[in-house]
């Protein structure tokens, strides 16, 4: 050691601050997490995002009557309805969209409900048609605004999710966004590469702006 630290007779005794600094130099190993660790951690966070709804809770929940009624209208992708009513959980809100979700090729892949409430815009998506992605990859829900593109994104992430082991997805997210500014809901498959931008793999897209 520099004798300055040891305080041998020919050197001064280090002060507390000097000693703490010396300890920091020799006790802290400069080690960073591996990329795989970071990827795994992001997947873990994605699995436990706020308001992510456990399957068991959802499966026992009483469905909103209005959802069933609206579902009868069999709204397709790029269509929706706007109805002022009271949702479950005793929270009033404006349903912007409630109905089946279909892919661009016409497959019915589940149901979606988007409700404006005081706390923000809530998304309730249920589907059993999204494939289970490899470890580290996940789906991400977006509110998309006009002019959005890969080069110039105009979207806000509402959250991420994984299907359960049986391939079922139950997600419930809230985001404080202005529906006039972000009238479209998009779901993308994300590679878990740490890039916060949306991937080009869009699996669902619902235009809420066309709702009556």
């Amino acid at each position, binding site marked *: 050691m*520099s004798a300055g630290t040891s305080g*041998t007779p020919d050197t001064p005794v280090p002060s507390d601050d000097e*000693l*703490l600094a010396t300890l*920091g130099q020799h006790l802290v190993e400069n080690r960073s997490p591996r990329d795989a660790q970071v990827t795994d951690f992001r997947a873990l966070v994605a699995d436990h*995002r706020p308001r992510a709804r456990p399957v068991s809770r959802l499966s026992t929940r009483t469905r909103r009557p209005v959802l069933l009624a609206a579902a009868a209208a069999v709204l397709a992708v790029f269509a929706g309805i706007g109805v002022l009513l009271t949702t479950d959980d005793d929270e009033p809100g404006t349903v912007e969209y409630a109905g089946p979700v279909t892919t661009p090729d016409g497959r019915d892949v589940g149901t979606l409900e988007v409700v404006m409430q005081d706390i923000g815009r809530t998304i309730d998506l249920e589907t059993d048609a999204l494939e289970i992605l490899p470890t580290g990859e996940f789906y991400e829900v977006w509110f998309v605004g006009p002019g959005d593109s890969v080069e110039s994104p105009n979207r806000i992430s509402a959250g991420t999710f994984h299907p359960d082991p049986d391939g079922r997805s139950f997600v419930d997210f809230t985001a404080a966004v202005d529906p006039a500014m972000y009238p479209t809901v998009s779901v993308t498959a994300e590679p878990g590469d740490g890039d916060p931008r949306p991937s080009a793999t869009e699996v669902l897209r619902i235009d809420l702006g066309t709702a009556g």
Partner: protein
Amino acid sequence: MLEDDADGSLRRIVTAAQGGDLDAWERLYRRGYPRLYAYARRRVSDDASADDAVSETMTRAVLKIDGFAWRGGGFDAWMYGILRNVLLEQGRRDRRDLPVAELDLGTGSDELEPHTVHARAEEGDQVRAAYAKLSDDDREILDLRVIAELSADEVAEMLGKKAGTVRMAQSRALDRLRSHLHTVGGGQR
């Protein structure tokens, strides 16, 4: 623990993480990992166990973040509180974990011939040797101050003590470290 705390960016990152922002969580992970790992590594017997402890700590942080509030010790003290609990539980589960005093403090110095060790490595050896002579309580205080970079107030909150008590304990620990350094560094040569 972090320099970005001073300008409030840590608070913004934590707030974003509480909202489920993946990138915010990644920043917290990358930011906290080196020192969380260093703290854990000094208390378990191998690198993998230290990694496990950090992973479990981060997992619990994700699960409990809704309960975190900015008061008292702040985010870093909250994280190290979780890590200490994880390590205590891990120690109870795994008999292979060694007391701190028996740990290889892990700098590779054992691989070096004494006559080839340069000055910095020699200093490191002596610091670690002296440090190993401290009591568990002394090391705990200094680890939280040096490795975790927590303030005396944060350490006090974590350990359930008064800040003045922590400062006094730190001062006494450093006095004993000086004494040990004198012994290993030249006093007995």
